[in-house]
């Protein structure tokens, strides 16, 4: 059965708004720019110092080489690191400029906010344009605001104590870049024993051509608290490279629970070099749900450090690599506490010459007595041109720990298609059904609207897959 795959219909995400009247810094990067960003944001002195230190480290570090897919197409001299839509952040959609509001309407954000979210943040290029949270959630002492805004309030010291502490500036070249030019992103603080019934969501939209987006997300969940945070990302397609080098730092307190869900659908000219990390205290639980559909090249490996005894982490991820995409995704787990448990369940689909690599690293420290780790990854290749690789690494330094790993790589068998067709299902629908079923363990972890969005993305990817 042949597969003649058409270009994917991305019309839902692929629309461009005018940049007229926007403030845009020249391409490239130097101290003058970094100072200008800081000045524009009227930041505390320590933040400017952090930026300058980061810039210095950035210049000293080499571009990553011999790691994953090539990023040669990314020319840092032609990436604009700061583009501002020149609008004030609003707490009502009515106050958001019309074309930007229209963008988020088309992405369904205000509607989701009304029906199923406790709060929403929306970033457009380098700046947040909207941030709002339900009053009853604010009344519980929950803070959900732009991180820059929070720097000017009572949480400045808390941010200073945590900002780029989990992801040090020296972590890698793009972490240093992020430290130097970061802009926008959300700050979340959930007080002790507070549980949110609905998720908070931040949506990042990169509209400007040849630009970078460097938002910083900092979440602190105090002991016994419970939060579900959702991050969505998209951008229209341009013929020049765009860069996303965001940073996410998550602190999960004793006995707390944090679920961090991402649906990433960057356009296929995007270099997505994002860094996410969580620190998990005693008895706490961290969950990552990750759907990666977009970007040209991705390096994305959320890292979890299980510091506290009896803490746990689950990673559930799916990556869909179509033509022209090379997505290197997975996760890293560092088990330091005793009786810690992690499970990794990753799925990848590659199609139309796309390449998908699952990369995981599990490190069990010498004090992680009785730690348990299971890693399971499954790949589905939809044609002969596509590629799928699995690179699981394990470093176990504790004798009482138990680790398990299983990997499968497969194709959709002719017998499967025949079975479904002989029950009256068309060939394209049969393939979509199998792919959706394959992705089901991930989509069922997502809130309904996102599960629907993910199924639609898969459907769009699969449409026209039959010649």
């Amino acid at each position, binding site marked *: *059965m042949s597969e003649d795959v058409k270009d994917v219909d991305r019309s839902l995400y692929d629309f461009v708004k005018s940049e007229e009247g926007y403030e845009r810094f020249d391409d490239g990067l130097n101290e003058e720019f970094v100072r200008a960003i800081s000045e524009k944001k009227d930041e505390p002195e320590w933040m400017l110092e952090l930026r300058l230190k980061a810039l210095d480290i950035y210049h000293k570090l080499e571009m990553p080489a011999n790691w994953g897919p090539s990023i040669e197409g990314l020319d840092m001299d032609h990436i604009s690191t700061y583009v501002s839509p020149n609008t004030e952040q609003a707490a009502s959609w009515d106050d958001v400029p019309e074309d930007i509001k229209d963008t988020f309407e088309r992405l369904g954000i205000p509607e989701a906010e009304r029906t199923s979210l406790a709060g929403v943040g929306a970033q457009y290029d380098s700046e947040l344009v909207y941030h709002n949270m339900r009053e009853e959630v604010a009344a519980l002492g929950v803070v959900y605001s732009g991180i820059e805004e929070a720097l000017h309030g009572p949480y400045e010291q808390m941010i200073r104590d945590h900002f780029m502490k989990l992801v040090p500036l020296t972590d890698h070249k793009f972490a240093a870049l992020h430290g130097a030019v970061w802009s926008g992103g959300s700050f979340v603080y959930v007080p002790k024993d507070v549980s949110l019934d609905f998720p908070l969501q931040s949506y990042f939209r990169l509209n400007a051509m040849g630009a970078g987006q460097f938002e910083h997300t900092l979440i602190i969940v105090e002991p016994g608290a419970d939060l579900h945070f959702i991050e969505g990302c998209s951008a229209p397609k341009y013929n020049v490279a765009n860069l996303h080098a965001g940073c996410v730092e998550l602190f999960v307190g004793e006995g707390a629970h944090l679920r961090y869900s991402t649906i990433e659908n960057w356009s296929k000219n995007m270099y997505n070099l994002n860094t996410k990390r969580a620190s998990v205290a005693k008895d706490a639980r961290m969950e990552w749900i990750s759907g990666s559909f977009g970007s040209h090249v991705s390096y994305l490996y959320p890292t979890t450090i299980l510091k506290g005894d009896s803490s746990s982490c689950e990673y559930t991820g799916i990556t869909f690599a179509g033509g022209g995409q090379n997505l290197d995704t997975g996760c890293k787990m560092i088990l330091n506490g005793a009786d810690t448990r992690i499970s990794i369940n990753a799925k990848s689909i590659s199609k139309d010459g796309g390449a998908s690599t699952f990369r995981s690293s599990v490190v069990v420290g010498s004090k992680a007595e009785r730690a348990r780790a299971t890693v399971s990854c499954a790949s589905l290749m939809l044609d002969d041109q596509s590629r799928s690789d699995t690179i699981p690494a394990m470093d176990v330094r504790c004798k009482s720990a138990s680790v398990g790993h299983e990997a499968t790589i497969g194709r959709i*068998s*002719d*017998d*499967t298609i*025949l*079975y*479904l*067709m*002989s*029950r*009256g*299902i*068309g*060939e394209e629908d049969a393939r979509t*059904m*199998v792919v*959706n*079923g*394959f*992705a*089901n*363990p991930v989509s069922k972890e997502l809130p309904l609207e996102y599960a629907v969005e993910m199924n639609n993305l898969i459907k769009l990817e699969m449409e026209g897959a039959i010649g």
Partner: protein
Amino acid sequence: MKHLLTISGLNAGTEDKSILHDVDLYLDANQTHVLMGPNGAGKSTLGRIIMGDPAYQVESGSIEFDGQDISEDSPEKRSLAGIFLSYQAPVEIPGVPLYSFLRTITQKRPELKASARQFRIRVNEICEQLDMDPGYLTRELNVGFSGGEKKKIEMLQLLLLQPRLAILDETDSGLDVDALSVVSRGMQAYRESCDGTLLVITHNTRILERLHVDHTHVMVHGRMVERGGSELIGRIDAEGFERYGVHEEVSAS
């Protein structure tokens, strides 16, 4: 008179091997047929060719269903026209819940239009008929089910879709006595519930005990060698395929 299925002068096989030679077969509506033959005779191949498995090519001859030549039709089209094939080894499809799969395949057929409630009632009725745990319905299609359970799921689809022609390919193979009795009950229920025609491919005579068989066909080395009534079954049970020049035990358990 038009037959439900008419196969004439069929020569077919895979790209590098011809398997069926000059096969003629006709089946009328509302009948039960049995296709017997030693291992490797081409029985399953015939079933798959009737269903339209693209792994096989028709070299010459014709296949007509309800007066229409279907030899160019996709398996999907043949299924919607009323042909059903139950496989020896039904495939497992992870992540697809059985219940929603059943709903999908039912909704493809306008003649089976039912409200969500009517559908649920119908499915539960069939489950009871087949002695099936309704808990199966929320599980993934065929995933982790035993051979017997998978065959029950095939029978469930058969009773739900009520096809005009149902081909059961070795549905009895590898089943324990209980599962065998469920399958046999399912076949009976299908024949009683609609005027569909059953073509049972088997070399196990036990499954046929409770069934009124109208015709028996014997296939050896890709050729139809005999057509008779139900008395053929008893004879083959006793003699095997000796008289057709094949020395093979016929399984009676």
